[in-house]
């Protein structure tokens, strides 16, 4: 056994320990990225190996919380991939308009940038007041930030550019107030958003959604967990409900590939098909 094999064994034990002790289940995450992030934490903490780290994370909750932040990726931006939001306006909004009341689930919403982007879009399309948005994440720190709706002012230029490219209909500055180092999103965007704790690896269905967005989350999961989560989305969507994935994610290799139809293939927008058809 070389040190790589030993390390893989230790990693497996550590993920098992995290699951048993704290309930977070990283066992079916894509390994390379998890391992890389744990390894960098180990180097930073000047630890010799994963076993030493496992000991610490079992006895020191604050250490586990730091590691949890390393393991949950919270990189996002407003109107990320403007062409996606363009496609939402053009092809998904007309579908939503058919319903008197709309339910949207943002799964893995991280610090909320994309949730607020959606809220802006709905407002501009005159649908916000009849919509309830459920925004969930497994990371409470990220969720708290999302709820606060306070963002670093340094990113504003990129967000404004994204917003304009995405087909935005007013001035982006209508939606926030700027302070010295941060911007605060407008209160009116928050009123129909419910932020809550939900772990895609361990928690269950969210019922009767018209639209589910889960972008750049599945890439961190292995095939089994991807299949579980897509199944969860299938069961949480109402008939003809829409599912949106990240630009490099697809259902092509999923167990559920025949359970969905393309709405906009290149933007990874799908429609749930009737269960009889599967």
């Amino acid at each position: 056994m070389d040190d790589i094999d030993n390390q893989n064994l230790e990693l497996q034990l550590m993920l098992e320990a995290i699951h048993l002790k704290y309930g977070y289940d990283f066992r079916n995450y894509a390994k390379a990225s998890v391992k890389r992030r744990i390894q960098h934490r180990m180097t930073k903490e000047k630890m010799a190996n994963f076993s030493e780290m496992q000991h610490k994370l079992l006895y020191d909750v604050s250490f586990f919380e730091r590691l949890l932040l390393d393991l949950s990726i919270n990189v996002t931006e407003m109107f990320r991939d403007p062409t996606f939001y363009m496609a939402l306006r053009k092809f998904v909004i007309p579908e939503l308009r058919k319903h008197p009341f709309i339910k949207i689930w943002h799964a893995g919403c991280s610090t909320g940038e994309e949730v607020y982007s959606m809220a802006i879009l709905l407002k501009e399309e005159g649908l916000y007041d009849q919509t309830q948005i459920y925004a969930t994440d497994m990371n409470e720190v990220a969720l708290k930030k999302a709820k606060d709706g306070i963002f670093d002012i340094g990113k504003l230029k990129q967000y404004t550019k994204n917003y304009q490219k995405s087909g935005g209909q007013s001035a982006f500055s209508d939606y926030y107030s700027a302070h010295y180092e941060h911007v605060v999103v407008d209160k009116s965007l928050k009123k129909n958003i419910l932020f809550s704790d939900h772990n895609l690896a361990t928690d269950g269905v969210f019922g009767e959604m018209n639209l589910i967005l889960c972008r750049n989350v599945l890439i961190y999961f292995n095939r089994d967990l991807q299949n579980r989560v897509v199944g969860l989305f299938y069961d949480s969507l109402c008939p003809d409900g829409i599912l949106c994935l990240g630009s490099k994610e697809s259902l092509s290799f999923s167990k559920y590939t025949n359970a969905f139809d393309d709405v906009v293939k290149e933007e990874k927008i799908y429609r749930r098909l009737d269960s009889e058809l599967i």
Partner: protein
Amino acid sequence: MNWFQAVVIGASAGGIKALSTVLSALPKEFPLPIIIVQHLYPHSSSRLAQILQKQSHLKIKEADEKEVIKNSVIYIAPPNYHLLIEEDRTFSLSVEGPVNYSRPSVDVLFETAALAYKSRLIGMILTGANNDGNFGVKQIKRRGGYLIIQDPETAEADSMPKAAIAAAKVNKILPIKQIGPYLLQLVNRSKKGPNI
């Protein structure tokens, strides 16, 4: 059977031209996968594969998540994603923050490739104006892999190859025109075993 099982390449400023030179020297029966991180602007479109395809006999495509890595195919990291290699030799993608101000980052690819391929890996650093890849070449070397670095004298931007040379004991430093032919020779020679 070749001793080597994959080639990873990192390039930044001036990289498209350098990559064209290296890749055009390889025949379509080149037996290994080649996996490339070329730094791009984060919001650029992904035309790099098409641009390089014109210069190459081998098939070039953007790497997809969970894709099984095949021989004789050149894979490019998609813009704005890190590209990682799993130990089962499939790709993963990640949007975690930039590493060395870069996403995709050469370090992230090299680090994970070193664990997946160990001593069966050839790592290559071409032109670039930063030091991304520095940590990655060390990891490749630590696992017994082989390193080819572009001669900084022939690089449009010399800091990336210079940093790599300073970071690890590299096997070969070559002018850009000789890298493709040397790689081919190295890989063909390695059929006989690891005595290189």
